[in-house]
């Protein structure tokens, strides 16, 4: 059973830029998928379509058989959590309040607008913070934390949603190598232990190789590779990262020599 189903999706932005040019993909429930590709390949747009942050120009995206569209977007989002490159926490709120934000969709607005949460939700938030190892920082303001810690709060917020799917858009692009390792291990462990489907956009080829069940390579708004990490050879990497109009690209050779 596929958790995410993408059918002939294309996306053209109002400024005329065509980010996606016909994408078809099925993502299996409980799998760990990495989307690789150069900047501007359409990775972010693809991920954002799965959570309703963008709407496709043509085609459709289904989550567990349900079409992602404007009217059902909040319902979809309650089950499809998102982790961002810039963490996107509310700086002035405490860590635990940021995590509790993950419960908003499950509750009516009456109590939540006054920052009143049920014991049950506090329990879920506590559990999520323990999972990411930040329980002692619960009452710190979110902007007082380091980048790696903020990203762990982002993951705790996602966990608090009790989601079916976690989408992570370049979750380690702003982090140092050690924090990156922590975050990727955490996401992998969430996938394995909770059976949550994880889709991650990455720039780092080595991380993709080590953590993914499946790698989708994108270039210029199209899928140019789809397979297991061990199937991703040097020539495949060349296709993923090749740049339009440049023959004999020495920068590409140098970059991939150590990938």
């Amino acid at each position, binding site marked *: 059973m596929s958790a995410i189903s993408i059918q002939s999706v294309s996306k053209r932005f109002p400024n005329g830029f065509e980010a996606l040019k016909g994408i078809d993909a099925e993502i299996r429930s409980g799998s760990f998928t990495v989307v690789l590709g150069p900047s501007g390949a359409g990775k972010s747009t693809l991920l954002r379509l799965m959570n309703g942050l963008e709407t496709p120009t043509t085609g459709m995206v289904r989550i567990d058989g349900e079409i992602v569209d404007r009217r059902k977007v909040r319902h979809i*989002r309650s089950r499809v*959590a998102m982790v961002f490159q810039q963490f*996107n926490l*509310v700086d002035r709120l405490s860590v635990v309040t940021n995590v509790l934000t993950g419960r908003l969709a499950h509750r009516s607005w009456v109590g939540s607008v006054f920052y009143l949460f049920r014991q049950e939700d506090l329990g879920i938030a506590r559990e999520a913070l323990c999972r990411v190892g930040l329980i002692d920082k619960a009452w710190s303001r979110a902007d007082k934390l380091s980048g790696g810690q903020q990203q762990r709060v982002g993951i705790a917020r996602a966990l608090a949603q009790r989601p079916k799917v976690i989408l992570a858009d370049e979750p380690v692009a702003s982090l140092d190598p050690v924090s990156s390792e922590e975050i990727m291990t955490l996401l992998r462990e969430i996938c394995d232990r909770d059976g949550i489907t994880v889709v991650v956009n990455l720039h780092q080829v080595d991380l993709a190789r080590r953590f993914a069940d499946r790698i989708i390579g994108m270039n210029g708004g199209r899928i140019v590779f789809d397979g297991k990490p061990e199937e991703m050879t040097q020539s495949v990497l060349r296709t993923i990262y090749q740049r339009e109009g440049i023959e004999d690209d020495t*920068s590409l050779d140098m970059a991939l020599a150590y990938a």
Partner: protein
Amino acid sequence: MNVHDLKSARPQPLPPKPRNPMPVWVAATLAMLWLIVWDLEISFETLAYGVEDMAEYFSRYGQPDFTDLSRYLYLMGVTLATALWGTVFALLVAFFLAPLAARNFAPNVVTYRIARETLNFMRAMPDLLLALIFVAALGLGPLPGALALGVHTAGFLGKFFAESLERVDKGVCEGVASTGANFAQMVMYAGWPSILREALGYVLYILDRNVRMASVLGLVGAGGIGLALHDTLRLFDYGQSAALILVILATILIIDYASAWLRRRLD
């Protein structure tokens, strides 16, 4: 561009400089200012001659008369209360209208337009005019003053808040939105916490402005220290007038320092 190209690249001329229209704008503004002075026949000579007369007039306020100080302080209290209630009213209205008038939070274009035009309308109504209307409708006293200040400054506060909300980081909004939060939850979690400091600054500014304005509103019968000042001025009682003006000045200074202190505390 390729590493190979970089090495062999010969120095190339700088691309042509983009046009900068700034000097034209500055020149046009100066020309317009000069035209206005010329058209209105504003004469700086008259101003120079008038300085002496003005100095003489102000010298009449030289001996403030504080014999009735306790009454002045009571009246100042009434004026402060008027300003405070006006500000609270403005804050309440702006709190509910501003999110609807912020493009990134408004649920749809229609509510956005309606909220924005409502705020514009409130702002466009001068508070002196509103005070006259409310005094006619509700009778003399601080209540019409508070209402007039409230309606007028709700328009300001709402606009300030809406503009701050529009500057909230797009990522923060997406972070909260991606959890499936609804409109009210978006406003309470992504909106207000992010602009809290700015918003407090605006509220304090509006309070400061309302205290000054409430002193003037007394002139149209809305009570407080303004009414007393109006009376003493009409009786050419310069001593008492000077005392009243000093009381107002001191109050505004105190509020200014208090709000600066409050803002530091919140940081």
